[in-house]
């Protein structure tokens, strides 16, 4: 009897344990983060889409990264990082950026995820850091190099720092408006993809010192590739988000609504 009383007393004195919080990462159940990381790795093995006549490829990974923030919120950064690390461990032969390849997809998911979680100041800081990483490199001050990150980074900065656009896009994503979700998804996917590709470009520039003679002539090519990725990611993003909502499966918009 004495032992039982003391046990009860201890239970009352201790702070309550919240297992549900322990099992979550930035509000998202850890099981979803695990599943996304596994999906990300699987997407790395799915044959890439060629860009006709240009010898480039569009990877399914790029689509996963672009929509990750809308599906998982800021936890997308963790899921993408895990997926990127596992991809590097399983397929180490195509890692152009070496063991640091996972950084690009992490940043992509982080910026759009923070934006969805209404942490726009933090998203802005990360995006500005990425932009600074590009412009701190002396090569970025060569002829016309400023146009390389321009189109989609400009849209990203506008979405983050222009309150009416930011509020409108977030509202449409959270309310899943049947028509307006399309342009809003386009903006969110643009934010994620532009953060990813600008991180990649900055890392490539620091590692391999590609000058304007490479970047400027290929600018149109990369803009067209990015456009295709963003459009396809928008279509898939709307499909996934609508499907998750209809199936009443947990995802970030349910949490941040």
């Amino acid at each position, binding site marked *: 009897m004495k032992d039982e009383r003391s046990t009860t007393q201890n239970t009352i004195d201790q702070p309550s344990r919240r297992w549900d919080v322990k099992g979550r990462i930035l509000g998202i159940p850890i099981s979803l983060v695990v*599943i996304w990381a596994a*999906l990300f790795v699987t997407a790395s093995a*799915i044959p890439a889409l060629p860009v006709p006549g240009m010898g480039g490829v569009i990877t399914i990974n790029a689509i996963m990264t672009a929509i990750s923030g809308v599906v998982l919120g800021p936890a997308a950064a963790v899921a993408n990082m895990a*997926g990127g690390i596992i991809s590097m461990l399983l397929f180490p032969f195509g890692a152009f950026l070496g063991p640091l390849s996972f950084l690009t997809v992490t940043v992509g998911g982080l910026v759009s995820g923070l934006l969805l979680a209404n942490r726009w100041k933090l998203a802005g800081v990360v995006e500005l850091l990425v932009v600074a990483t590009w412009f701190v490199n002396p090569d970025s001050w060569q002829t016309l190099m400023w146009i390389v990150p321009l189109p989609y980074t400009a849209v990203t900065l506008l979405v983050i720092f222009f309150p009416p656009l930011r509020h409108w896009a977030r509202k449409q994503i959270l309310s899943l408006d049947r028509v307006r979700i399309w342009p809003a998804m386009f903006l969110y996917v643009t934010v994620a993809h532009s953060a990813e590709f600008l991180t990649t470009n900055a890392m490539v520039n620091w590692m391999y010192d590609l000058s304007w*003679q490479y970047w400027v002539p290929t600018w149109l090519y990369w803009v067209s590739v990015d456009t295709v990725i963003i459009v396809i990611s928008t279509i898939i993003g709307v499909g996934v988000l609508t499907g998750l909502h209809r199936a009443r*499966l947990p995802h970030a918009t349910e949490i941040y609504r």
Partner: protein
Amino acid sequence: MATSAFIPANTFLHRLDARSKLIALLTILAIAMILDHPVYILGLLGIVLFSWLAARLPLNFLGNIFKYFSGIALLIFCIQLFFYPGEIYLLHLSRPIPLIGFSGYISLEGVLYGLALILRLIVILTIAPLLVMTTPLSELMLALVKFKIPYRFAFILTTAMSLLPSIQNRAELIQQAQLCRGVADFEQGNLILRLRASASLLIPLILGAFRDSQTLEVAISSRAFGAPVQRTYLLETHLRPVDYSLIMASGLLLLFSLWIRWG
């Protein structure tokens, strides 16, 4: 899909602790970024290739890496060859063409810097496979845990890897189902058709996997995930004197390269 790139063997490199190999990998990566003279990076590449041979790893992997990235390596070299603003001229090609930033000369500095960047590319491309092919994934994961990365992140890595075969099977089933319905052709067709195919694969794949995640969630919760317990590990590794030696050698090499560059 491959679930591991590890190639079993009983060599010096295979026997090293994953932590010391990870530290050596990061050090070599940092040195490759710090140094910008081809002779030094060639020395670094020599160390990497010697390790590759010592670990008895297949050389055809190296050949495939070089073949796959030869195009981008050539591009990197040509850019430095023609556009690097050097002072010691080797070859006069034409009059200056300001529009493309070409001085008309090929300089010694441009050749050396171009070679240095190609060698840097090769070091970066070969160093990660060297680690992954000589270390079992379980030991790599344990090394990350021993480096005090958050347990939850280590859990995500290991659980995601164990789920890969089932997700891959699901992806193949969806591909087959969509092919049967005539909705998509994943192998042929123009760009638009292939993009449509990727949408018809990804959407059901993600939704199905998210539905399965609820079972995983129940399993995680029922095992009281996150409970404050003292964790033990099935696999235990210990740093041996040879591992400490490798870590010290990596540190000294890093200091030496910093001295070469800025000393």
